[in-house]
């Protein structure tokens, strides 16, 4: 079957226990389908449970109810076809750039020479060939993200999960990283779930935008983004269609952000 979706979450509920023993609901009756080669973005107010969706797909979390399927099969443990880019710096600080990039192939048993050859190729692709032997702390935030991208892409993931990967970068670097990401993605066409709280980022990158409700999160609405590819991410935000869809989604998202905001104020 060629039309099996890459990722499917069917009526998924995810509860967990808070440290004081109360049950909290992160996701409720959550439905999401990502087709092969599709770029999906998930936006929602802060702390609504966006990242939980990703952890369910990796198998790090198990659903309390419902079903998660990856490439048509159930999720059992960590899937080798999945790549994950983290929000925080998850590079190994004691390894230099190239050793970080080849970590995945070496873990997976690729012969050393081949792993390093591939590693150099990927470093060239993200423009870091000259920095091979530097340590992560000697790089800028944007460069570290490039290393993280190379580290993930070298495993040739069929599914790429990204958890607010660029949120710690400044606006200019972020826009460069968007272009970089779309370039790498267009070469391997993985199915992507990109979690972010930045609506413009979601629209600029994705084919489909999921808007989540304030926690417990469920899908409020789904928007198709029909902007043509390849996209010029730096300029796209001034595009008339971009502005139109961005306004529509924001109307939807705004009310959820307000709900989340008023809840936080109540707690504080």
């Amino acid at each position, binding site marked *: 079957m060629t039309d099996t979706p890459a990722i499917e979450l069917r009526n998924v509920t995810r509860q967990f226990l808070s440290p004081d023993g109360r049950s909290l609901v992160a996701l409720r009756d959550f439905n999401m389908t990502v087709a092969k080669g599709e770029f999906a973005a998930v936006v929602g107010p802060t702390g609504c449970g966006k990242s939980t969706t990703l952890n369910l797909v990796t198998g*790090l979390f198990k659903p309390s109810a419902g079903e998660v399927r990856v490439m048509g099969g159930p999720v059992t443990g*960590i899937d080798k076809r999945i790549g*994950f880019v*983290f929000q*925080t710096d*998850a590079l*190994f600080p004691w390894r230099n750039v190239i050793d970080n990039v080849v970590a995945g192939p070496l873990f997976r048993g690729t012969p050393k020479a081949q792993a390093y050859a591939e590693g150099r190729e990927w470093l060239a692709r993200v423009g870091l060939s000259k920095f091979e032997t530097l*340590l992560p702390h*000697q790089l800028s935030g944007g460069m570290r993200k490039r290393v993280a991208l190379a*580290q993930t892409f070298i495993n040739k993931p069929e599914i790429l999960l990204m958890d607010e990967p660029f949120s710690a970068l400044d606006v200019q670097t972020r826009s460069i990283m968007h272009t970089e990401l779309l370039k790498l993605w267009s070469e391997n066409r993985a199915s992507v779930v990109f979690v972010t709280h930045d609506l413009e980022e979601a629209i600029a990158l994705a084919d489909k935008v999921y808007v989540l409700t304030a926690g417990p999160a469920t899908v409020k609405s789904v928007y198709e983004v029909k902007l043509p590819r390849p996209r010029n991410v730096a300029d796209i935000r001034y595009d008339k269609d971009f502005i139109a869809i961005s306004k529509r989604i924001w109307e939807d998202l705004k009310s959820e952000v307000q709900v989340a905001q008023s809840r936080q104020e109540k707690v504080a």
Partner: protein
Amino acid sequence: MSITMDAATPTAAELEAKAQALKTSYKRKVYFWRTTILVLILGSWELAARTEVIDPFRYAMPSTIWGRLYEWTTEGTSEGSLWYNLWVTMEESLLGFFSGSAIGVLAGIALGRNQLAADVFALYIKLINSIPRVVLAPIFTVIFGLGLASKVALSFIMVFFVVFANAFQGVREADKAMIANARILGASDWQLTKAVIVPSAMSWIFASLHVSFGFAIIGAIVGEFVGARNGIGVLISVAKGTFDSAGMFAAILIVMVVALAAEYIMTALENRFAKWKPQAAMDNQ
């Protein structure tokens, strides 16, 4: 408006030279005060003892301590050659230190990676840890005899708990995102331990190794106090028996030098291992 270089704006080279000069003069100041304080303390000690403000028999004085050291190195001690006695204590300490830290690291990592084992053993570790280690010396002497083994055992137990606790904590503090990253990149349990857990626990482990060589020496010397034929502890014990204060201070001085040398080696090793760590930028102002 353009920025012009006028006389008041120093060039980079001038700035660097100035910073260098400031650094050197600061260093000189530090060394000056260090030396001054040392000379003052030793000088007033010597003076007070010579003028009998303090009892020279009980407090000794730098010159007699130095004399005793000289005598020990040239003529040997009542218990044989100084070097032999020092070697005995070093052998006990080193064996205790290496076995204690190796097993401490292994146990810390093993329990740090296994929640169930950690919860089960936590009780026993707390129980044993609550015993002041030195009270074990008599028991070890009874069990292992007067020779090497009883001192190594005491050294071991002194070192083990410190290193274990730090290795355990280091494993627990390993960054969650980094662990998740390694797992998703394809690391097996063993690869994860080797590539992520151990390196990130390393700075904790090194912090414990710094103090634990001192503990190893304590273990060896206390063991020697309780019963031994040779060692620095025996020298101190014999000096005590003959009211030889200078001898006791001389032995303490020897231990001090040894501990400092060990600390120096440890720091060098740590710097070599921790090359990946960011160095704080110098603020020249």
